[in-house]
């Protein structure tokens, strides 16, 4: 434990997890908005939008996240010169948020779409019968009901997103896995404690999150 009693190491440890939480928070919002929009496109009456949604899902679900993040850095930043902040780390952070959001949105879209499938047909038929348009049917009748059945998949997506946030370390953000690698390289005598602290922190954040979403999903589940 002498490694973490050094304030420098302890600060690196804390800030690394703050990066993870910030990445997770911003990307979760981005992926949620984008994913619900994509899901709406995929069930819409306009063929072009359906095709766009399907293409997005198939491309990003089948590309490794490492490659997506890699492309955000070398494609958007290095080649196209898209700079989102003067600060080096903040720039990488926002590039990471873009990559994580676009990638995770594909999974959110699929979760919402299977959530829409759990809403009984009669609900949408009744909505159409009273003259609601497609947008109204989706917004007022179907999505609120679908939301209750997608909580469990959203929980797993959020947990995966939090773990995936470490991949932004590959383009140079000092997040937890990169900090752990550095600490291991400088403290070869305390490898196991270092690993247990980092892995244990993830477990302490994510295992309760998993149980929380399980509890929430059960509580809000539509009893049919």
């Amino acid at each position, binding site marked *: 434990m002498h490694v973490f009693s050094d304030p420098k190491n302890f600060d690196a440890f804390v800030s690394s997890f703050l990066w993870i939480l910030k990445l997770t928070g911003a990307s979760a919002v981005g992926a949620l908005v984008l994913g619900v929009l994509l899901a709406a496109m995929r069930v819409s009456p306009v063929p072009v939008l359906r095709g766009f949604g399907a293409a997005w899902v198939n491309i990003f679900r089948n590309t490794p996240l490492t490659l997506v993040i890699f492309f955000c850095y070398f494609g958007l930043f290095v080649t196209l010169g898209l700079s989102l902040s003067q600060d080096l780390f903040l720039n990488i952070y926002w590039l990471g948020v873009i990559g994580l959001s676009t990638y995770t949105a594909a999974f959110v879209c699929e979760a919402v779409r299977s959530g829409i499938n759990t809403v009984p047909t009669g609900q949408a038929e009744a909505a159409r019968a009273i003259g609601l348009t497609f947008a109204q049917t989706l917004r007022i009748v179907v999505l609120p009901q679908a939301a209750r059945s997608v909580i469990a998949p959203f929980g797993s997506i959020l947990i995966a997103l939090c773990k995936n946030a470490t991949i932004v370390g590959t383009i140079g953000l000092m997040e937890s896995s990169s900090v752990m690698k550095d600490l291991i390289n400088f403290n070869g005598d305390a490898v196991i404690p270092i690993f247990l602290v980092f892995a244990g922190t*993830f477990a302490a954040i994510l295992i309760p999150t998993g149980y929380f979403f399980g509890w929430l999903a059960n509580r809000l589940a539509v009893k049919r």
Partner: protein
Amino acid sequence: MSTSSVLYDHPGPRAKVRNTVLSVIFGVALLGLVYWIYSKFDQANQWEGWLWKPFAEPKTWTQFILPGLWATLKAAGVGMLLSLAFGIIFAVGRLSDHKWISVPAGAVVEFFRAVPLLLMIFFVFYGLPYVIKQPVTAFWSVVIGLTLYNGSVLAEAFRAGIRALPGGQSEAAYAIGMRKTQVMQLILIPQAARAMLPIIVSQLVVLLKDTALGYIVAYPELLQRGVNDLAANYGNIIPAAMVIAVIYIIINSMLTWFAGWLERRTGTRRVRVPRQRAGTAGSTVVEPQG
């Protein structure tokens, strides 16, 4: 709600016109977006012939891409076999009647499911050599990381599959005098494995994508060879990344399609479980890691 078309009425003349107009508007907007991206890369001189020419030469494929692809498939294959074994052992362990087996097995599964793969790979590659006093190759650090993570996910999938089987199956097996081990081996695991086959295959997609993380410990897989090393030789990192992405998308699409085909095939035979419920339960188990 099996088809999404119940969300809107069958288009009449006005709706048809509106949909066509919207199609045209969004189509033009999309083309504009594509052209904008194209011109941005064009301004950065990314479409010049010499950047793409290497992909027409056999040397690029035989030296970089195919060896990388082979290394990716090798790590994914070994990782899949080991994580299947890990998954079955820990699923059975967690279902054990003995607390001293089921509690540690559950703790191991929950722990490795919560630890990011990158953290595992870094620990095995950089940390483990200090502990076991000998170096760990990049291949094994990737495979061990993949096994522990995906094995834990598969263990949960198997456990869910075994518990979803009708209780009568094990009751009947006990009634004809089978022992606990026999019930598990001969009755429960074969049925659960078949029901969980689509999930196992979709987890293979996850695993294959995760091998891309091998590039940060310099394991010569597809991303390392096809993008890093290739671009180091030809200076064409963006074209290389695009080509490699297409290769990943093709391979994973085939596996995804295969998983869907298996699901359709096995789905029709499982009469006891309502299909919709089974579908959503399955999708919660597989996590979209890496």
